[in-house]
């Protein structure tokens, strides 16, 4: 497991151009919406003197009026986007199952990006197929196209499980916490049980993600035609060595947590007032996005290494 993680780190670090492609896709996908938000804000600030306050910091008075009139994409703008709030807002939405709530346009963009990422996963896993990292743009996108249909079928299968988790299982868990703590007067008890429920949701989410990661890996490694067979293989693989599989996933999780903690410490606030400080704050944010995407590569690379090692071991044993 540790060796697989080390190998995953090595492979992920050996694919900077691929990381660059992924970052570029993320940025290009976000840019039109960011441009639209910029136009919305320009219109809302208008010719008023609020511009000065917003240039130097945040104007809570202006924001109250903006929020009152906000519609559509404008409703997604909030002071909690500053610094680590951007990450926490999304983490909370994920674990609360509310990613699709709110403005439908953003939810649609997220789902579209999910489809796009499904395509890109094919190129990533093809690149990490073996120890020798070879990246070429044509091969990357070609692999993406080759596996896209089967990956979409896997996505639909996992989608059913995620739906069951976030629409039924997770709400049921939190209702159970409410029922169990109905007469509890100590907040720490309720907090502990709520944290346990969140951890359980995170565990189940991770389990589904893990199973379908290995399904994709198996599909690529063995060139399977059947997504259903790959899904079964993924589940079998995880449940055959659950502790090591989950342990490896946790190592990736620790890496992600470190990135979040580091960003929490360095994340810029609201008070940039010069173009270079605004640019610096933006670049820090991009650094976090890059780190996040790189951690995703580590997940896929290390799981690929783990899968291939385990497969070799079982073949040798046989």
């Amino acid at each position: 497991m540790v060796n697989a993680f080390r190998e995953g780190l090595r492979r992920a670090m050996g694919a900077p151009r691929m990381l660059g492609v992924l970052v570029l896709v993320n940025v290009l996908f976000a840019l039109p919406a960011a441009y639209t938000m910029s136009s919305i804000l320009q219109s809302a600030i208008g010719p008023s003197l609020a511009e000065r306050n917003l240039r130097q910091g945040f104007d809570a008075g202006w924001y109250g009026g903006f929020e009152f009139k906000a519609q559509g994409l404008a409703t997604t703008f909030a002071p909690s986007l500053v610094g680590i709030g951007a990450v926490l807002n999304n983490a909370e939405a994920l674990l609360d199952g509310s990613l699709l709530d709110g403005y439908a346009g953003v939810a649609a963009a997220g789902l579209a990006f999910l489809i796009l990422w499904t395509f890109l996963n094919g190129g990533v896993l093809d690149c990490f197929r073996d120890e020798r990292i070879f990246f070429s743009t044509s091969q990357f996108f070609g692999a993406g196209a080759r596996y896209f249909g089967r990956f979409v079928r896997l996505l639909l299968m996992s989608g059913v499980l995620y739906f069951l988790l976030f629409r039924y299982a997770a709400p049921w868990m939190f209702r159970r916490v409410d029922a169990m703590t109905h007469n509890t007067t100590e907040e720490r008890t309720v907090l502990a049980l709520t944290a346990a429920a969140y951890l359980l949701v995170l565990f189940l989410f991770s389990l589904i993600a893990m199973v379908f990661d290995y399904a994709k890996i198996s599909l690529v490694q063995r060139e399977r035609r059947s997504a259903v067979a790959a899904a079964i293989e993924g589940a079998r693989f995880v449940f055959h060595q659950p502790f090591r599989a989950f342990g490896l996933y946790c190592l990736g999780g620790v890496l992600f947590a470190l990135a979040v903690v580091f960003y929490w410490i360095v994340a810029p606030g609201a008070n940039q007032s010069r173009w270079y400080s605004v640019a610096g704050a933006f670049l820090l944010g991009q650094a976090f996005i890059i780190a996040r995407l790189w951690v995703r590569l580590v997940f896929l690379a290390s799981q690929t290494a783990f899968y291939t090692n385990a497969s070799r071991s079982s073949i040798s044993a046989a």
Partner: protein
Amino acid sequence: MRRFHIAPFVLLLSVIGLLVPQAGHTQTPAGALSARNANYDIQVALDPRQKTLDGREVLTWRNETDAPATELWFHLYYNAWKNTQSTWLKEDSLRGARAKVRPEDWSYIDVSSVRVLPEAPFDAADLTSAKRFASPDDGNPEDQTVLIVPLPRPVGPKETIKVEVVFHSKIPRTFARTGYRGNYFFIAQWFPKVGVYQPDGKWNCHQFHAATEFFSDYGVYDVRMTVPRGYVLGATGVLKQKTENPEGTTTYEYFQEDVHDFAWTASERYLERTARFEEPGLPPVEMRLLLQPEHSSQAERHFAATRAALKHYGTWYGAYPYGHITIVDPAYDSGAGGMEYPTLFTAGSRWLNPEGGGSPEGVTVHEAGHQFWYGIVGNNEFEDAWLDEGFNTFSTARTMEAAFGENVYVRRYFRTFLPVLFRDIKLDRMIAGNRLDGYRNAIAQDAQSRPTYLYYPPVASTITYSKTALWLSTLERELGWETLQKILSTYFDRWKFKHPKPADFFAVANEVSGRDLTPFFDQVYRSSAIFDYAVQSVDSQPAAPRGYIDKDGGHIYSAPPAGDDAPPLYHSRIVLRRLGDGIWPVDVEVAFENGEKLRERWDGRERYQVYEYDGPSKIRYAIVDRERKLLLDVDYTNNSRLLEPRPEFAARKWASKWMVWFQDLLATFASFS
């Protein structure tokens, strides 16, 4: 003929006149702060397993008016949560769906006996069978929050009657402020409480409404509460006696004079802390804090906030007279937090509560502040709730700023357990403290002059809290703090331990300010006018006229002077608009590129106003109400306009931050793949 010596007769009449109280005036007993006409001697026992109270009260009630009282009207607040047919729950449903209510959550109060006790001039009488419920506000026959007890003989002016009431209550799991959670109890509005008898011979005893609080007369409370041994108890007043009973219970006797309500709390988990408030020029106050164990590190924060309230309210308005105060930190999610009772109040905190976010300091200051507005100045919270909530919201914001500076924005994540402070996002008193956002979100609302219990429930709090605080802040900026403080302190001094009405406050405001503020109160109190002033446009053009000019009997074409040696001259114009119905005089500041600034005073009456200037410089900007005196202006963004606006930088700065969030969101969606 015998002379009739009139002088002794006149002297006798004068002495009699001095001794007989004037008609309609409340008589304050010697040494008392208030009329003390509604006095209670109560014994009550709590059964924590059954969640019930069994009580017996003796009400000693004096008719302070000249109109004989043929009935006694009582509030039975617990019946508001007896079933879904009550007025309270029907109105509450307008505010949104309520979480599922379990069978054991409902409440009631049953009066099993009402007897007149024999004390001259009244004979003993059993009135139990004569009592009946009434619904004076909405005629709801199912509402049982008002009980009428006809009397066998009227209580004449200044006569006193003693009535014994025996009651049994089922304590609610908290719907609003009073109730239990587990073995934590906060007991408020728990006993049959007599209404207020008015000089016109009518009872002011409203049904319990979702958007209102309470109203009752001042008196003396002597209350003995029996709870299981091991419970820590706090109550209005001071502990007079504690008795350990042989059956494993403890009886606490609390006593308080000159208050109009009595609340108490009991829990096995309270930690008790004490401290003392001392401030030059103000009487000392012993502070007792009943704290949840997980908040033990926050004791000093509660004391600091209470001190701040006692100091600033005491300095600004008048001294807190009781000498003691109890601060209650309620149990988690008990629903009892953030509420005031005489000499006792509930604050409310969380286990993770970093400093700087305004909690628990804000709620502590606010509820301690209610000792002044509501406790000492006893307005009718059914009809004029704004007189205490609005005054207190304004005062709380002022105190928080004076004692703790600006708050910062706090967002609580993961079902509110994880607080994160955004230290760069500052919330100033004028906007956040006075709750402008809440007011703006419920603009289409009743005029404040409408009785509070008739407000549309979902927006009632914005009128009572936000709107009042905002117009008080406007008055502060218009008159100056010194004048407003004098208004409030005069009003406080004149109406302490009494029941003022809005007209009483307005009269003091006019008197002390030396101005007729009626037009202002017409706008903010008697109407629901919306204020919105705006700068519609700013323009600067070269001043020389263009076009045909008459000359020498003909026309010549005139164009702006050309060449570098031509001195620039600009004709500038600003157009101001009144977009709302509210009218208020506003200052206008016009700034020019050469640094010159002009001030205009617009009476704000017409729908638009134009100002024009000729000068060597173009306009840079115009702004209506630069000092933001008119806090009720619902859109301050349109109050200013730059001739050459450049919103791009600010817009791009904030869009770049938004983009990082959006990119992270996309990555989060990708984690499903």
